[in-house]
């Protein structure tokens, strides 16, 4: 008797659970449960779960390497998850490839457009599903349908023209139209605004509003906080491949969001540089009103002799782009750069090197190393002219130079003849440092100098950077790790969306203040 009662109770509770589950499923177009994905032993995604409701704009936030793209690729069938489940539209599904995800109703709009530039707009919209009639493709009705889609959102596009007659913004919109015409229930947008100007962003957001009314769910990936707060209903934050949480947009301030994305990354290091005010020292570099659309807008700052200035900001804030302009890799649309009080014109990096600049790039492998060349030649490559006697390279001088720096910077290598690709990341970075130090520079730009190297080497490189400053070399230090900036910089310039939003000096320098500035665009005075 009792047993029957218990069973009955148990069954009914199960039923309740079932209906509850079904209800939440009905609301949620997408549920991702406990997804884990490894790449060569590294956990790119660690037990990530989140869900998206119908007709919701859901922001997916996180710094570089947080796992956003991996998650999207798992969702759309490009990668296969190691474990975990995906429920889409009330069905459990693991898409074997991108096409089947598209058939099920998930469209993805990538940062780099995946369309065919030489085909017409309407062909691109209906690619792979051209309307047919007896004599082949029904061009007329295809163009009419495409034109209707375009007119519906009120953009001026002639669908008969080839796609590449339109700029990136319009192409972006066209790829969204394709998603709409596919009757997608969920559209994933991976940084759709990164190459748009503000008018174009408005148009895009108009379209998103419309989609929202049609109960289409949108997963929105961006690094621009403004857009998140303007458009999105809730935010899911990923950090280092882990799920941080999902928050209602109204309950999470920009500051808290930043804290969740990049906070708590503090390493215990004993290096505490005594910060000094350099504003009365000799001015080495003066950048005035430099603009390069759309990455850098009207940036002006000064750099003094021996000063370490940090560039803080999120990814896409224009940090690296600004450094590339200063070093002559990219040419600005307008603005001036002065060095030592003289106006300089940089048409390529060699001009910058001639001016006494050095640049440790963000991507060591792609832009710094000569992998199949020995350590000593990697060190000597910028100073070959000084090593020449009568036109020939003096091999003894080269060896002396490389040994000097191998010893000075503590580069761990069996010999100078070793190929640099056989060294560890930290030692490779030191070799690049040695290369630039040998040129006796006045200014060194470090872009993420400690990325991908272990803690010990990190501390050594930070120490070296401070030593350069003591020797009178000015340093521009770019890092995503706020704690690193706070430890090493005399002054921090905070960038957001390509503009300088503030500057921190001396005692004002703290992770909290940097985050406040990025979040609020306010000057430090109004903060305190």
């Amino acid at each position, binding site marked *: 008797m009792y047993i029957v009662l218990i069973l009955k109770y148990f069954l009914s509770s199960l039923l309740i659970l079932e209906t509850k589950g079904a209800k939440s499923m009905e609301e949620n177009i997408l549920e991702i449960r406990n997804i884990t994905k490894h790449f060569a032993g590294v956990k790119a995604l660690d037990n990530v779960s989140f869900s998206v409701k119908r007709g919701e704009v859901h922001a997916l936030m996180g710094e570089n390497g947080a796992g956003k793209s991996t998650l999207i690729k798992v969702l759309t069938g490009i990668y296969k998850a190691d474990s975990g489940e995906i429920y889409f539209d009330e069905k459990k599904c693991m898409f074997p490839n991108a096409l089947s995800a598209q058939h099920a109703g998930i469209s993805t709009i990538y940062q780099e457009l995946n369309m065919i530039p030489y085909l017409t707009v309407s062909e691109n919209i209906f690619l792979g599903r051209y309307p047919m009639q007896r004599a082949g493709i029904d061009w007329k009705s295809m163009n009419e349908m495409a034109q209707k889609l375009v007119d519906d959102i009120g953009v001026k596009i002639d669908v008969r023209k080839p796609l590449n007659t339109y700029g990136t913004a319009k192409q972006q919109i066209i790829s969204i139209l394709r998603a709409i015409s596919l009757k997608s229930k969920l559209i994933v947008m991976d940084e759709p605004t990164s190459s748009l100007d503000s008018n174009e962003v408005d148009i895009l957001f108009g379209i998103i509003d419309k989609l929202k009314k049609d109960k289409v769910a949108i997963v929105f990936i961006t690094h621009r906080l403004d857009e998140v707060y303007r458009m999105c209903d809730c935010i899911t934050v990923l950090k280092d491949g882990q799920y941080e949480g999902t928050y209602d947009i109204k309950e999470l301030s920009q500051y808290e969001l930043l804290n969740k994305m990049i906070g708590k990354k503090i390493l215990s290091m004993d290096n505490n540089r005594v910060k000094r005010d350099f504003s009365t020292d000799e001015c080495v570099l003066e950048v005035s009103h430099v603009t390069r659309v759309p990455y850098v807008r009207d940036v002006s700052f000064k750099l003094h002799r021996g000063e370490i200035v940090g560039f803080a900001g999120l990814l896409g804030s224009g940090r690296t782009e600004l450094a590339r302009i200063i070093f002559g890799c990219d040419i600005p649309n307008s603005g001036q750069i002065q060095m030592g009080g003289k106006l300089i014109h940089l048409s390529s990096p060699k001009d910058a090197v001639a001016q006494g600049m050095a640049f440790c790039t963000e991507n060591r492998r792609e832009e710094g190393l000569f992998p199949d*060349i020995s350590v000593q030649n990697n060190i*000597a490559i910028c100073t070959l002219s000084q090593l020449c006697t009568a036109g020939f390279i003096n091999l003894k001088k080269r060896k002396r130079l490389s040994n000097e720096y191998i010893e000075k910077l503590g580069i761990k290598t069996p010999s100078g003849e*070793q190929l640099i690709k056989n060294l560890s990341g930290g030692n490779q970075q030191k070799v690049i440092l040695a290369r630039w130090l040998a040129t006796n520079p006045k200014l060194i730009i470090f872009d993420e100098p400690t990325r991908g190297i272990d803690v010990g080497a990190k501390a050594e490189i930070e120490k070296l950077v401070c030593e350069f400053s003591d020797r009178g070399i000015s340093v521009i230090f770019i890092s995503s790790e706020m704690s690193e900036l706070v430890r090493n910089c005399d002054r921090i310039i905070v960038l957001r969306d390509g503009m300088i939003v503030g500057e921190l000096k001396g005692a004002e320098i703290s992770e909290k203040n940097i985050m406040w500035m990025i979040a609020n665009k306010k000057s430090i005075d109004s903060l305190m």
Partner: protein
Amino acid sequence: MSSITKNFRFEITIFRKYVSVLALLALIIFNCLFTQNFVSWVTFSNLFIQASKVVLLGLGMTLIIATGGIDISVGSAMGLSATISAIFLVNGEPAGILLSLIVVAAFGVLCGTLVSKFSILPLIATLALRYILRGLAQGLSGRGTVTYNSPALTQFFITPIAGHFPIHFFILVIAVIIMYLVVNRMKFGFQVEAYGNNPIAAKIAGINTTKIIILCYAVSAIFAWVSGMLEMIMVSSADPSTVGLDMEIDAIAAAVIGGTPITGGYPNIIGTVCGALLLQLITMMCNMNNVPYSTALMIKAGIIVFALFFHGFRKK
């Protein structure tokens, strides 16, 4: 343990660097043992005279391949330089030989500019030049083969020096020494290797990459001129449609066998020289043993595949 593997790897790299030298030595020893009449001055001078053009073209090709490029116009450049020089010699103006050098070098500079400044793929840029130069040569000659009469010049070239050494031998030795020093001991060579390794990093390291590329193509054109001259002098005439025809293919093969990575990297001068000599030696060996030419071609193909296997065809 790891140091052992590292040393082992280090030795393998050295072995790879000189694999063509070893292959050449092996083939020479093989011939000394099994080919009748192989050990003689005639064989020696024939080898150098016949291989000289490919060696010279190969030196320039090595530089270009080291930058990650390729130059399929050198055969046509040979044809043009021979034709221009022969026309001037017919008219009794030997100074015109210098003019042909200037013209061909200018086309090399043009080619380098197209590749570096206008980012045209080397294969396409040199393909265009291959047609242009051949067309120019044929147009200038107008009536086919240009034959001149200058016995003194021919006599000077076919007279062996010190009784046994053909003049080609000395030209080759000088060219190889110069190129070896340029590559291994001069700024230019170091920068070429760096560019071939990583063009973006080379640019950021402040290397004038445009200049480097233009120079490489110009040097290659100059070597094409030298081998064009050699070919013209040997026969006292220049046929604009056959001088240097398909010669670039042999030069590329020599560089590849020599171990210069086709994706860019260290220009292995000694390797290229040995590669070119190896190819020529195979032809001679087959001739001397009455093996048909078609078989020689297949042996050459085998050597190229073998070389690529040893050098490891790495994807970048």
